[in-house]
C-alpha cells in the first residue's frame, strides 16, 4: 500500500510525518537535530530512502546531514561512523560543511560584490543553504541553493560541494540585492525532460535558467514588473518568492513573486500575470497538483508589510485553469484569529491518485488536504515555526 513521508524543517529541528495513503492517521518522528534551524530537507527520487538536510545556525554555521534509511539515522557525509576521522595529510573530514565560492582560474569567477540593503556594494559571504535539490536520476548528485546567492553541486552524496560559478559570474551580480530574508537562492528545479536545463530563483535578483547543465546561465525575467525597484521591468532585481512546475509540462512555470502570481509557457522566456481574482497576490508559496498540470495552489498573504492571511482567515486558493480564476479553500483551516505566515519552501504535493497538498506555517502547524484542497486537517499543531515542507510518495 502506498504511503507518504512528509519532511518538515523548523526553526528548532526537523520532523518526519508518515502516513498511509489515506493520510488520516500520522506518526510523528522528531525533533531531529533539536535546537538547530532546518532550512530544508528533501528526498532523492532516485533513492527515496536517501534524504538530505540543511542544518544551520547563526552561531555555528552550516552542516549538511544525510540519511540513507528514510530519516531513521543521519550522518554528515564524509564522516561516516567508524571510519578514520582524518584524511590524507591529517586534514579533518569536515568537508561536507564546506561551501567555498569558486574563484579558481579553471572554472570560477572573481568574487566581486553584490548590492547591499543600503545600496552600497557588499562582498559575497556564505551564510547558509536554503534549498537542497537532489538529482532526479542519480542519488549521489544534489544541488544546493545558498545565501549569499549561488548554486553548488555535490556529485558524491553531499560529501563535497563545488559552486557552479557561471551563475554568480553572469555579470549582473552587482545588481542583485538581498530581500529581508537575505540574498538567498531558494528555488532549484531540474527539468524532468531535459537534465541540462535547470531553473533557479533568487530573492532579490529574479529567475535564471541554464540549458547546458549549469555552466552558463541567463536571467528569465521578461514580463515581470516590480514597482519597488528603480526600473520596474529590469533584467534582474525582482523578488521572486517561488517557482513551480508540473513534471509533464516543464515549459510551463508558475511563479509567486513578492507581489503578483505569474505564468510562463515558454520556460521563462516571457511571463504573464495570472493573479486574476485573488484577494491579494502577495505570498510566498506556489505549487501544482501532481495529477492536474493546470491546477495551481497559492496561499495569499495580506501584504509585504503584514505577513499574515487576510481577515485572520487561513485560506488556500486554487486555480483549475492555470491561473486567473481562483477559488478559496478554507474547509478545515482556521477561519478566525489566524495570523501565521506560510514561508516559500513550506508547501508540497504528493502524487497519489488524489493528490495530497501540504503546507506548514510559522505558527507550527502542518496541514494536509488528501483530496486536492477540498478538505484540510492539521497533522500537527504545535511544532516550532515551519521553514519547509516536502513530501515523498512511497510505494
Amino acid at each position: 500500500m502506498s504511503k507518504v513521508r512528509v519532511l518538515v524543517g523548523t526553526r528548532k529541528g526537523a520532523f518526519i510525518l508518515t502516513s498511509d495513503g489515506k493520510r488520516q492517521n500520522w506518526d510523528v518522528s522528531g525533533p531531529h537535530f533539536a535546537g538547530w534551524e532546518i532550512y530544508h530537507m528533501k528526498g532523492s527520487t532516485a533513492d527515496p530512502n536517501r534524504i538530505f538536510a540543511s542544518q544551520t545556525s547563526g552561531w555555528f554555521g552550516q552542516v549538511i546531514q544525510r540519511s540513507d534509511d528514510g530519516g531513521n539515522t543521519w550522518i554528515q557525509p564524509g564522516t561516516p561512523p567508524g571510519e578514520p576521522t582524518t584524511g590524507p595529510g591529517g586534514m579533518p573530514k569536515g568537508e561536507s560543511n564546506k561551501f567555498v565560492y569558486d574563484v579558481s582560474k579553471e572554472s570560477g569567477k572573481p568574487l566581486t560584490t553584490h548590492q547591499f540593503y543600503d545600496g552600497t556594494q557588499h562582498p559575497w559571504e556564505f551564510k547558509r543553504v536554503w534549498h537542497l535539490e537532489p538529482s532526479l536520476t542519480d542519488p549521489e548528485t544534489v544541488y544546493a541553493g545558498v545565501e549569499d546567492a549561488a548554486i553548488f553541486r555535490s556529485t558524491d552524496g553531499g560529501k563535497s560541494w563545488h559552486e557552479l560559478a557561471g551563475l554568480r559570474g553572469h555579470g549582473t551580480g552587482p545588481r542583485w540585492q538581498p530581500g529581508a530574508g537575505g540574498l538567498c537562492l531558494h528555488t532549484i528545479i531540474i527539468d524532468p525532460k531535459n537534465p541540462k536545463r535547470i531553473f533557479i530563483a533568487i530573492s532579490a535578483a529574479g529567475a535564471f535558467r541554464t540549458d547546458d547543465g549549469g555552466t552558463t546561465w541567463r536571467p528569465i525575467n521578461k514580463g515581470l514588473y516590480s514597482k519597488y525597484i528603480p526600473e520596474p521591468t529590469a533584467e534582474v532585481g525582482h523578488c521572486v518568492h517561488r517557482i513551480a512546475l508540473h513534471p509533464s509540462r516543464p515549459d510551463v512555470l508558475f511563479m509567486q513573486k513578492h507581489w503578483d502570481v505569474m505564468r510562463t509557457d515558454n520556460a521563462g522566456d516571457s511571463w504573464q500575470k495570472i493573479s486574476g481574482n485573488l484577494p491579494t497576490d502577495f505570498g510566498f508559496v506556489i505549487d501544482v497538483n501532481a495529477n492536474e498540470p493546470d491546477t495551481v495552489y497559492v496561499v495569499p498573504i495580506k501584504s509585504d508589510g503584514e505577513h499574515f492571511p487576510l481577515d485572520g482567515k487561513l485560506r488556500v486558493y486554487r486555480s483549475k485553469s492555470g491561473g486567473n480564476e481562483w477559488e478559496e479553500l478554507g474547509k478545515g483551516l482556521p477561519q478566525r484569529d489566524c495570523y501565521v505566515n506560510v514561508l516559500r519552501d513550506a508547501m508540497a504535493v504528493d502524487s497519489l491518485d488524489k493528490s495530497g497538498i501540504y503546507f506548514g506555517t510559522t505558527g507550527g502547524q502542518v496541514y494536509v488536504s488528501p483530496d486536492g484542497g477540498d478538505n484540510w486537517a492539521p497533522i500537527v499543531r504545535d511544532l516550532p515555526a515551519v521553514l519547509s515542507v516536502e513530501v515523498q510518495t512511497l510505494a
Partner: protein
Amino acid sequence: MIRVILPPHLRGLAHIGSGEVELEVAGQPTQRSVLDALEARYPMLSGTIRDHVTQQRRPFLRFFACGEDLSHEQPDAPLPDAIASGVEPLLILGAIAGG
C-alpha cells in the same frame, strides 16, 4: 591534557554527551592547536567554531578560560598555564539569545 567545554548544540552534533572533551595537544597549547586537535577528533565540528576558509572565530562564539575572555587573543598566542596543565577548561560559549 587539555579540557574543552563545548556548547550543547556542538556536543549534540559531535555525539559527545554532557561531559568535557579531553585532548592531547603537543607543545605549548594555543587556540589554534586546540581547535585543530578538536576538529581532528570530531571532524563534524569543522567550520562550526571558526570559518572554513578564513579560520576566523564565528562572531557569536567566545572563548573563555580562567575567568577571562580570550576571544580576541591571537590564535597562536599561548593559552594560560592552567589550561595547558588541565587545571582549568577552555570554555567555548555561544552568545545568549532569546527564542
